[in-house]
């Protein structure tokens, strides 16, 4: 016993005497000189040297091939440039184009404020920026030497490359600790790009239908309809960022973030169906039908939910909410407005969830407020969608091109996510019927190629619909995307659910939580955090899969580039140029998404275990 006691203080002391004091930093590893770096990383042995030489040759060949394709005088790049509006929005009427800019401006405003609220800015070392610029400059020089430019162009590009590399070289030797915000860098880059629209003579095309060559290249800078809106967009984004940083310090940050997230979810719907589609509201119908329905559901629903969220309600509440659910299903047996059926079902859902969120007065009022908010949004949207649009567009949908790609992507993600979570919960549930239905659904959907599902929904489903029910092709394929992605997301979420330990379930049960509370407050938040990396992969894949719309003949981004533009008499055989442009856009967006997701992963990892 004595021996142990005397030895234990020694044991505690020894490590502290060996370890360096806290203030001492680890020794700096001397940076390799460039020749040493080359030797260590590229030419460390014969085999590696051969590999290095071969791959360098291959890369140079590929760059040269690509450049000679791009800068070949035969290329009709004007096909892409003159058809930009078609590529982006298809036949959206020109005189209403301000609506597009307003929508984009609002989204950019949200982006700016969100960047400020989520503190996206990082400080970057200026010497690091210098290194990056030096590399970019060197790359431009290399590319210029490889490209089949005219002498004049070569000299201009060489000058640009030397200028960038020189700036980089100067910045590289800046003081060690000088930093710059990444937002300043980003806005500076965009500012230069927009400025170039006003200064550099890119040229533009004029279209006059009475002239013999209808389309004619004009010298000078790009058209006013391009450079002016983009300048305003940049100003909006930068201003909203500063506005966001100002507001951030004044209000409760977490509330601001919640509000922003809600706006991100809801605003695309409003922009699409109220701003872009511009419904031609019929005042008489509005006051005789739509507003009374809204008032009825908000008032009756609020009273019902206030009563149901009473903690002492007990069994009576469950009976009443189940009755509402049956009424909701029964509405489909009778002739009535679709909006009434939908709202009754939503009310039933809120009623069934009421016991989970029951509590004292503030909690009950909050729940009722959520109900009224849902009613406002749902009634407004359903009414807007059922009203004819002022935008007179050929075809059955008012927008196309890149806009419809984005729209279908947005709806797929927003609706597939909750559906996927529900499927995952059902698949891991204790009830065999839920488990069976969900497993069958997931395995069936995952066993069928997406294109088959898309064709099935665009061709077959409209034929099977009952009389009086109408589904546009766009709605049908969106549903197809939703169920397909939901099945995959469900598997990702299921992985997350299984990673939540048994101890967490037990701890939640031991404090008396109901199953719903345990799932909502304890299990799902942890499961979704684990599922973020695979889900982001799935989201990026979904964005790329929207390209399949082209195959079933929807006027999406890819279809216009591949079939519509090459069909114009002026631009026959311009498919490759358009496809190269389309792939560049997809590449930029997917790369940005995957970069952003890496940062999100890092952030949610904070304070995890």
């Amino acid at each position, binding site marked *: 016993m004595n021996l142990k006691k005397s030895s234990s203080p020694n044991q505690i002391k020894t490590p502290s005497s060996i370890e360096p004091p806290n203030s001492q930093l680890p020794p700096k590893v001397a940076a390799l000189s460039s020749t040493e770096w080359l030797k260590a990383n590229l030419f460390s042995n014969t085999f590696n040297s051969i590999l290095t030489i071969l791959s360098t040759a291959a890369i140079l060949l590929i760059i040269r091939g690509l450049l000679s394709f791009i800068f070949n005088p035969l290329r009709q790049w004007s096909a892409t440039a003159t058809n930009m509006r078609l590529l982006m929005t298809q036949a959206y009427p020109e005189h209403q184009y301000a609506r597009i800019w307003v929508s984009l401006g609002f989204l950019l405003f949200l982006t700016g404020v969100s960047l400020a609220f989520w503190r996206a800015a990082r400080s970057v070392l200026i010497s690091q920026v210098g290194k990056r610029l030096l590399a970019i400059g060197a790359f431009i020089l290399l590319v210029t030497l490889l490209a089949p430019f005219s002498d004049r162009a070569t000299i201009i590009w060489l000058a640009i490359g030397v200028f960038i590399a020189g700036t980089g070289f100067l910045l590289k030797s800046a003081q060690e600790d000088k930093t710059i915000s990444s937002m300043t860098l980003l806005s500076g880059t965009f500012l230069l790009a927009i400025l170039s629209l006003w200064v550099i003579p890119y040229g533009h095309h004029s279209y006059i239908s009475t002239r013999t060559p209808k389309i004619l290249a004009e010298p000078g800078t790009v058209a006013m309809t391009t450079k002016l809106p983009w300048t305003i967009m940049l100003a909006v984004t930068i201003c909203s960022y500063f506005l966001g940083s100002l507001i951030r310090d004044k209000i409760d940050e977490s509330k601001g973030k919640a509000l922003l997230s809600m706006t991100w979810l809801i605003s695309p719907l409003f922009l699409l169906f109220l701003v872009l589609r511009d419904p031609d509201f019929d005042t008489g119908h509005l006051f005789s039908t739509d507003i009374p329905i809204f008032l009825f559901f908000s008032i009756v629903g609020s009273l019902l939910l206030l009563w149901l969220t009473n903690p002492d309600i007990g069994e009576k509440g469950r009976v009443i909410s189940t009755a509402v659910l049956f009424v909701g299903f029964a509405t489909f047996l009778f002739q009535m407005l679709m909006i009434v059926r939908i709202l009754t079902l939503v009310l039933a859902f809120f009623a069934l969830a009421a016991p989970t969120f*029951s509590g*004292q007065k503030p909690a009950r009022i909050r729940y009722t407020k959520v109900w009224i908010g849902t009613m406002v949004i749902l009634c407004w949207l359903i009414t807007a969608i059922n009203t004819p649009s002022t935008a007179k567009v050929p075809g059955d949908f008012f927008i196309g091109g890149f806009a419809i790609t984005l729209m279908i992507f947005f709806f797929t993600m927003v609706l597939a996510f909750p559906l996927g979570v529900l499927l995952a919960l059902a698949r891991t549930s204790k009830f065999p019927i839920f488990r069976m239905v969900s497993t069958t659904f997931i395995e069936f959907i995952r066993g069928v190629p997406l294109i088959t599902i898309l064709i099935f929904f665009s061709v077959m489903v409209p034929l099977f619909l009952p009389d009086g029910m109408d589904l546009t092709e766009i709605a049908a394929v969106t549903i197809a995307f939703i169920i397909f992605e939901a099945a995959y997301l469900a598997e990702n979420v299921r992985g997350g659910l299984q990673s939540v330990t048994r101890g967490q379930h*037990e701890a939640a049960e031991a404090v008396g*939580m109901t199953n719903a509370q345990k799932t909502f407050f304890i299990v799902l938040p942890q499961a979704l*955090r684990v599922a973020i990396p695979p889900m982001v992969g799935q989201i990026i894949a979904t964005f790329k899969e929207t390209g399949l719309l082209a195959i079933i003949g929807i006027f999406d981004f890819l279809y216009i580039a591949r079939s519509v533009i090459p069909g114009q008499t002026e631009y026959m055989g311009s498919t490759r140029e358009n496809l190269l442009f389309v792939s560049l856009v997809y590449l930029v967006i997917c790369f940005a998404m995957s970069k952003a997701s890496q940062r999100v992963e890092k952030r949610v990892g904070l304070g995890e275990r």
Partner: protein
Amino acid sequence: MTENETASSIRGDRDLANAQDIIVCEGVSKWFGDFQALNNVSATIKEQEVVVVLGPSGSGKSTWIRCINRLEQHQEGRIMVDGVELSNDLRNIEKVRSEVGMVFQMFNLFPHLTVRDNISLAPIWVRKKPRAEAEEQASSLLERVGIPEQADKFPGQLSGGQQQRVAIARALAMEPKIMLFDEPTSALDPEMIKEVLDVMKELALSGMTMMVVTHEMGFAKEVADKIMFMEGGQIVEIGTPEHFFTNPTEERTKLFLSQIL
């Protein structure tokens, strides 16, 4: 020894003889597959009593304590907790669970919530307390377990001992009548065991009904009113600490004590 005497003198104030029975087990048996984990366990625990369950590993201590708030289901016999019999009726189980606090060996704090939210979540959503009141209660409970300054940290940022104290505060936030401790110090480093045991002692002195599965013999000697010794899924011996540690009747108890002391 002086500490011991003060403890027992404070505990002596309670009238255990006239206290109500709060946990009653009658012939409880449980099997995991073919393996019988509990074999006809019968015992009664009175209000304000502190019971320590001892026994070698695999003797069914944890299984028994987990049956009392139905984290495990017993297959034979009856368990009554505060007058409510545990059955498959969900409402009974939720009622019992909100009156029985439990502290786990591995803490099982919710890693995605701050310490304050860990404590106030169940009072808000199960007890339906207003948020402000629940958070105030969380602060005072953290004060009680001695870590008021950690309220805004995440569990992952705390030491093991601090985490276990938060877990105790989380269980206390439901204002339970009974506290179950399932080997609360087994996953802790030796220097952190004392801080957790001190909190448990304070709790015992305040008159909480406690059932503790532990290997801390010092705690059992000092704080327990009753010691139950289990082996092979059966209760072998029940007695006061004096009786148990100085003069055990059963052969198996003597063997167990000779191995650990």
